[in-house]
C-alpha cells in the first residue's frame, strides 16, 4: 500500500493538473438517467417548480411568501414566485474535491467558504447548466497541521442561456496521517485524531429562554420598502437564529440534492442496501467499517452518523458547510425586504456546527455607496448598494461563520434595483485574495 506522504504528494500533484479544466464533479448521473453526463456546460436535473421552491425555502429555514406563496409573489415587484439564488448549490456544488481514485487520498475535506455573485432572480420553470473550474491550489501550514486550500469558480446559466450567478468555492483538505495511503483510516485508529473536543451541548434554562425569545421575535420586513436613503453605516440587522442542529437539519440539503448528480467517479451515487454494498466494493473510499457492527461496507455518513463522524476527525455529527453558504441569505432578505436584491454574499466557515449547536447570525452595514454595472454594449446602470458584515456564532459564543454581502436596495430617487444586473458574458475569475475581503462587497 502507498505510504501517507507518497499518497499526499500524489494528491497534490494530480489536483494541480486539474486546475483550469472543467471539473468532473457533480455531473448528471450516468445512463439510465436522462441527461448527458459528458455535456459541457453541464446540464442539471434540477427543475424549478412552485413546490420545489417552497420546499427549498423551508429547507433553508425561510417561509418568506415570496418563495412559498405564488399569489403573493405575483403581486410583488418581481411579478412571480422566486427562490433564493443559493438553490444553485443543487445545480453544482460550488467547490472542488480535487483528484480522485477508488481508494481515495488521505485528506479530510471541509468546505471553508463560498462567495456568490447573483445577477438575476430565479423563477419557476427554470432549468440549469453550469461550469465548474478549479483555479487555485495552495499548500499552507496552519495552526494544527498542513492544509491544502483549493479554490474554484462556478458559472450557472438558465435554460435560456442567461448567466444567473457565479460562485467561488473554497475547500480545505486536511491531511490525516491516520488514514495511511487511502481516504479511510482503519477502524482501530478511529478517534486517534479529533479536531475538536466536544459533546452535544446541554442547554441551560437561560440559554433555552434566550433562543426561544429570539426565534419567537424574528421578523421579516416583507413588502415594506427599505430605501437606500434610510440606511446608515453602522446599522445593525436583526439577528437570525437557528435552533439546535439535529438530524432533520442534516437531511435538508440532501433531501433535495440526492439523485441529481453522479458520484465523483461518474457512477450513480447509490447509498442503500445491496447497490450500496456493491458501490462500497468498487469504491473503497465510500466504505467505512462500522465501529459497533463491524460491517466493513457501511456508507460514508460522516456528517450524520455519530458512530462515523470520527472518520472525518470530528467528535460528533456536524453540519454540511454548504448549508452555511445558503442559510445566512435569510439574514439579508429579512432585513432588506422584498424590494432588495442580494448581489453578493460570502460566508466562510470557521468551525463546524456540531450536532446540538445553535446558530446565531448578526449583520452590520459597514458601507453605503453607489456602484455602476456595465453591459457589454457600454450602457451602465447605477445601483444604490450597502456592504454588510456577517458574523455567525454558536451558543457558546464561538464564531462559526464570518462573511460579507452586497445588497442592492431600492432608492427614493431611482426606484427598484434593475434586474438582471449587467455583467460581462463570462465574467473573469475573482481570486480568493479579493473575494474574501470586505472591499469586494
Amino acid at each position, binding site marked *: 500500500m502507498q505510504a501517507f506522504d507518497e499518497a499526499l504528494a500524489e494528491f497534490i500533484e494530480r489536483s494541480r493538473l486539474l486546475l483550469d479544466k472543467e471539473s468532473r464533479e457533480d455531473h448528471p448521473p450516468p*445512463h*439510465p*438517467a*436522462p441527461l448527458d453526463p459528458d455535456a459541457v456546460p453541464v446540464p442539471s*436535473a434540477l427543475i424549478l417548480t412552485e*413546490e420545489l421552491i*417552497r*420546499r427549498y425555502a*423551508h*429547507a433553508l*429555514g*425561510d*417561509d418568506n411568501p415570496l418563495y412559498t406563496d405564488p399569489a403573493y409573489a405575483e403581486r410583488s415587484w418581481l411579478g412571480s414566485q422566486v427562490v433564493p439564488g443559493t438553490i444553485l448549490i443543487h445545480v453544482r456544488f460550488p467547490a472542488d474535491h480535487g483528484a480522485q481514485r477508488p481508494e481515495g487520498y488521505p485528506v479530510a475535506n471541509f468546505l471553508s467558504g463560498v462567495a456568490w455573485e447573483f445577477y438575476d432572480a430565479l423563477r419557476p420553470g427554470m432549468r440549469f447548466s453550469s461550469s465548474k473550474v478549479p483555479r487555485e491550489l495552495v499548500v499552507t501550514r496552519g495552526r494544527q497541521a498542513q492544509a491544502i486550500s483549493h479554490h474554484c469558480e462556478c458559472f450557472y446559466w438558465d435554460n435560456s442561456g442567461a448567466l444567473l450567478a457565479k460562485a467561488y468555492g473554497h475547500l480545505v483538505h486536511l491531511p490525516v496521517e491516520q488514514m495511511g495511503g487511502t481516504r479511510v483510516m482503519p477502524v482501530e485508529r478511529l478517534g486517534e485524531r479529533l479536531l475538536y473536543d466536544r459533546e*452535544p*451541548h*446541554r*442547554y441551560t434554562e437561560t440559554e*433555552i429562554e434566550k433562543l*426561544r425569545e429570539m*426565534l419567537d421575535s424574528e421578523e421579516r420586513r416583507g413588502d415594506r420598502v427599505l430605501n437606500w436613503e434610510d440606511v446608515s453605516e453602522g446599522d445593525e440587522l436583526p439577528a437570525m437564529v*437557528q*435552533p*439546535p*442542529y*439535529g*438530524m*432533520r*437539519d442534516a*437531511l*435538508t440539503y*440532501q*433531501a433535495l440534492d*440526492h*439523485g*441529481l448528480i453522479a458520484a465523483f467517479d461518474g457512477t450513480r451515487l447509490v*447509498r*442503500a*442496501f*445491496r*447497490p*450500496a454494498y*456493491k458501490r462500497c466494493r468498487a469504491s473503497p473510499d465510500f466504505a467505512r467499517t*462500522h465501529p*459497533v*457492527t*463491524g*460491517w466493513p461496507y*457501511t*456508507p460514508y*455518513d460522516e456528517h*450524520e*452518523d*455519530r*458512530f*462515523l463522524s470520527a472518520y472525518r476527525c470530528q467528535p*460528533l*455529527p456536524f453540519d454540511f458547510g454548504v448549508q452555511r453558504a445558503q*442559510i445566512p441569505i435569510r439574514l439579508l432578505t429579512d432585513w432588506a425586504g422584498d424590494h432588495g436584491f442580494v448581489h453578493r454574499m460570502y460566508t466562510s466557515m470557521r468551525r463546524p456546527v456540531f*450536532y*446540538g449547536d445553535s446558530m446565531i447570525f448578526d449583520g452590520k452595514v459597514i458601507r453605503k455607496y453607489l456602484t455602476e454595472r456595465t453591459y457589454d454594449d457600454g450602457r451602465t446602470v447605477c445601483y444604490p448598494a450597502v456592504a454588510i458584515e456577517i458574523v455567525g456564532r454558536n451558543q457558546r459564543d464561538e464564531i462559526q461563520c464570518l462573511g460579507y454581502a452586497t445588497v442592492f436596495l431600492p432608492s427614493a430617487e431611482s426606484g427598484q434595483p434593475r434586474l438582471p444586473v449587467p455583467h460581462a458574458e463570462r465574467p473573469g475569475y475573482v481570486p480568493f485574495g479579493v473575494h474574501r475581503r470586505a472591499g469586494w462587497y
Partner: protein
Amino acid sequence: MTGIEIQAGVPAVDDVERLIRCSGRVIGCIAPDIEPGVDVASWLNVSRFAEASGDDNPLYTDPQYGAGSAHHTMLAPPTFVLAIRAPGSAGVADLMAHRLTRDLTSMRLTWDDTIRLGDTLSGRVCVADVTRRYTQTGRLRARVVSTVDYHRNGASFASGLAEVELAPLDEQTPFSQCRAIHRYEPADVQRLVRELEAEPSCRGAVPRYWSDVALGDTTAVTLKGPLTLSDIEVWVFAEGRPVRAGNIEYARLAARDGRRAPHPLTGWPVWDRADASLDSAATAPAGPAAPGGLLVTLAGQHVTHWMGDDGFLRQLTVRLHRSFRYGDVLRLAGTVVDRDIRTDEAENRYHAVTLRLAGTNQLGETVAEADGVVFLPDRGKPVRLPVHGGLSCDTPLER
C-alpha cells in the same frame, strides 16, 4: 395549541383512553398527521424510490428499457404510492400531549393499475377508526385504522389501509429498542458478503407464467442490511415529504403537542419525537430503526423482483412484528401458497398467485410477514390493465 393537557400523576396508560376519546373528532376526516409527498412520477422521484429499497430493476430506473417493455414506458415500483401519501395515521396523537409510542403494525395496498413515468399523482388519507385493543397479557392499546385512496392523472388507481398501535411509553412492546446494536464477527461478515454476492438479479423481461408456478415454490432469499443510517436517510428522500430546517420545525411543533419532547442529549424542549427514527445520536446506544413504510416497500420489492416485468402486483398485505433496527439484517423469503383465477367487472380474467413472505433478522426473529397477490401472465394471456371494479374468484383453492 390544542387545549388538551396532561394531568400530573395520571398514569401513561390513561393517555390511551384519552387518545381514543379525543380521536372521535377525526374519524372519517382527513388524517391530521399525514403530509403530502410527491405529486409526479418524475424520473428523479421514481429512481430515488427504487434506490431506497435497493431495487436495481431497470423497469423502474431506465426510460429506454421501459419503452421496450410490455408497458411501453418506465414504471414506478407499486409501493411508490407510499411516496404520494403513506397511510399510517396515529389519529390525533400529534395534536395532544401524551406519553405513548406509536408503531405501524400492518398495511394493505391494492392496485388496479401501474404508475407510469410522468403520471401526476395525488392521494388522500382518512382516519377510519380508533379502537381499544388488549394484548394477550391484558395491556391496553389504541389501534388507529386509516385508509388511503390514490389517483393517477385524476382517476382512482389504488387504495390502502393501515393500522397503527399506540402503547404507553413505559411499557415494553415488540417494537421497543431494548438490546444493543448487533455486532458481526468476521465469519458473520463473510457469510453476509457471500449472500449478497450470490443474490440473483431481478427476473426482469423473462415472463413468469402462471402455469409454470406451483404451490410450494419458493423465492430466492434477499438480504437487506446490515441496516445503516444511509438506508434510513435514502428512505426519507424517497418518501418525498418536505424536510424543513430547525426554525420552521420549531414553529410547526408549536401546534403539535404530541410530537414535541425535550431532546434527550441537549435538553432543547422543542425536539420532534419522530426524529428518533433516524437519529443515531439521540437513540444511542440502541440506534434508530427503519420506518414501517420501508419494510412494506422491501416486501413489495421482493415480490416484483420475483414476478418479472410482465407480472402485476395486485395486493400487498404486510404485518409488522418488530423493528428492523440499525445494524440488523433482514432476510426476506417467500413461498407460493395459493393459485387461482379471478375475473373483474369487465370480464378480464387474471391468473393470480399468492406469495407468502417472511422477513427475519440475524437473530432469527420474525420482523415482518406479508402476502402478495400477483397477477401473472400465462402463455398467450398477458395481464390486462387496468383492473375494472371488483374481482370474483373463479376457481376453488388448489389445496
